[in-house]
């Protein structure tokens, strides 16, 4: 979870050279957005030679005043930030990113937990899923409502659950009429995999070359290697 720390009012600055002070001020002014080294050089009021800048950055890092962070929009570029700040969502990618990449393991675990609770509850609202997960103690840190909503939306896109509206009766008793709920998809190929359609069941349906395939061309049904593999009995 990203949390923004308030900058301390008395930053240690006595031991900084003029150059270091200049650079540190620019970086610190960007707060939780940080700044790319090249952009930072442009913002300096004086034109400092590269070697001075590099030396200053290294010194500031050694003094634990600034740190390097990953900007997911430009992972290769050196992005600097004052240590007292945590990278904002725009830089870090948000709760689901770790060091510039999607934390796929964490996402998988949360998805699996949400799905488990939905299956257990049979019909669940977002609040229901959230409470159920909290009670299960599956996570050390509480997930926010927004996080659960994002994961549940992704499960709908994966076709593992479906979104329905409560009609207030039957399995929707105790849920207000019109409230959005989620149910496990009863069928559908099993385990969220979509049932293979007719076109997708044949080589042409999944072929990346279909746009250049012609009846008598170099790529054609008669010469097609995908067909040959498919018909290799």
């Amino acid at each position: 979870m990203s949390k923004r720390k308030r900058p301390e009012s008395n930053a240690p600055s006595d031991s900084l050279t003029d150059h270091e002070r200049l650079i540190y001020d620019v970086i610190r002014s960007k707060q939780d957005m940080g700044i790319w080294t090249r952009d930072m050089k442009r913002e300096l009021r004086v034109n400092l030679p590269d070697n001075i800048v590099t030396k200053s950055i290294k010194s500031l890092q050694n003094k634990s005043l600034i740190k390097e962070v990953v900007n997911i929009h430009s992972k290769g570029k050196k992005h600097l930030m004052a240590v007292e700040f945590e990278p904002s969502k725009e830089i870090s990618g948000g709760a689901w990113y770790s060091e510039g990449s999607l934390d796929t393991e964490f996402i998988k675990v949360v998805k699996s937990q949400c799905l488990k609770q939905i299956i257990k509850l049979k019909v669940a609202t977002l609040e229901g899923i959230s409470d159920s997960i909290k009670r299960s103690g599956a996570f050390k840190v509480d997930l926010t409502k927004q996080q659960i909503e994002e994961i549940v939306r992704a499960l709908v896109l994966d076709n593992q659950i479906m979104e329905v509206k409560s009609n207030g009766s039957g399995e929707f008793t105790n849920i207000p009429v019109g409230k959005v709920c989620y149910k496990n998809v009863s069928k559908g190929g099993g385990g969220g995999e979509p049932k293979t359609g007719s076109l997708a069941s044949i080589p042409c349906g999944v072929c990346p070359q279909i746009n250049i395939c012609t009846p008598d061309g170099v790529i054609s049904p008669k010469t097609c290697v995908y067909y040959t593999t498919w018909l290799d009995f």
Partner: protein
Amino acid sequence: MLTEYGTKHAVHVITNHFGDLVAKVCECLLRKGPLTRQNVKRYTELSDEQVKNALLVLIQQNCVQAFTTEQPDGFADGPKANTQYVVLFDNILHRVRFAKFLTILSQEFDQQCVELVQGLLEHGRLTLKQMFDRAKSSEKEGNLVDLDSLRETLVKLVTAHYVERCPASEPLLMPISEEEGPARKKGSKSAKKIGEPETIEQQVVEAALPMEAMRFSVVTNVESDVGEKEKNSNNVTPGEKRKHDVLELDECGVADEQSVVYRANFEGFIRRLRHKGCIDHVRAHLDDGAANVLSAMLQATSSAEKKVKTKNSVPLSLSSIYEEVIKSEAGRNMTLDHVRASLVQLGELSFVDASSDSYSIDFEKIIEIAQNEEVESVVSKRYGRDAYRIFRLLSKSGRLLETDKISDTTFVEKKDAPKILYKLWKDGYLLMEKLVVTGARQSQFLLWKVNRQILWKHVLDEMFHAALNLSLRVSYELDREKELLNLPADKRTGPLQDRYNRIRKVRILLESSQMKLDDAILLFHDF
């Protein structure tokens, strides 16, 4: 507008069934639109006789319809009628479905009905006498054919709307005036949606159709006058005005049983296939109980359907539905509660609309979901799971979404999302728009969207392409093993037997794939 592979597929079907010459004329009409015989001759560079014979074959087989239009003439002798020919693309597609039509019949009628329709499908159109002669020629001992029972069979099939009287040979197509336009489109049963302009093919088909009562009536008496005919004919409402160009009239103006021509009514079969498709879809999504309930609702309301692409079924009460459900063997074990529960399940998926204690099937919704699944399946298999989620997000949203928003919502890496989106766009699955925002710095954003109308046309073209490919591959494989297939069974030993086993499996796989793909073409083109 026909797509490229729609045209190629249709031409291939005609070539397989009727040869290159007929196919050449057909292709000319498909690509150029309706033409006079002179123009067909000009474009195909065939002789007059060849063009005439090809057109006769295509008309006989219901793949082409002639029509006349009034050409205003500069000369004093008034407007001239000229005959043009238009291809009936849908009917060409139906030619690969004859086995499906006959299967439907065999589930509802006896063998004599199946054989009668088989004859109509094979020959395109027949009079009662021709049907009788055909039945006689394949008569088996102990199973003699008589005209009365054949006539009864014909009446059964016509009443069920699986057979119809042939349309007018050359109806006059009136030009649609500006004022008439929307009203005509609204009332037209062949317009796909209200507001969508009718194609010439649709206009001609509609102009040629006999009135409903005439279309589904069997002429039973010979050499009686018109008045008597009205009394004796089945299904004719007294006092209803007849179109004089509908009946095959002899010199005395009498409809002669011997000359009235009948053909298979494709619409009837397609409607039935649409129902069957919906039932199968419900069964796959829910269970047999829900499928039984839907089937019962269809049974009770299908006679009220005015056109194939009906949006909703006639509303029914719970008790009417239950009465119909328990009529079938499959539904006999269902309780009222069970039926009610199935209706709730169907309602949750919006397959059935429930209001004021009456229930109505939403065909459009069932078909829309089935179409979505078909396309999503292609996206998943061709582009991967991440692309599947992205596509579903854009398809559900129906509006433009920005790249970052897409990657956040679908949990796709920010560096991967643009690559996937670009690939989908390049292959015609997405639309893309650029948005430039000028502020402190100029930023460019890419927005993406699924446009169903454009995409569905593209997918249908891919299906026609795939159908053509399957057909070409079948011919190629069978051609390669032609000699082996002609070898007597006892000569097929060792590796020859292995090859024979392989070609059998290949044929079964390819032909069953063709049938399955045709179900998808029905879903996107006919349902």
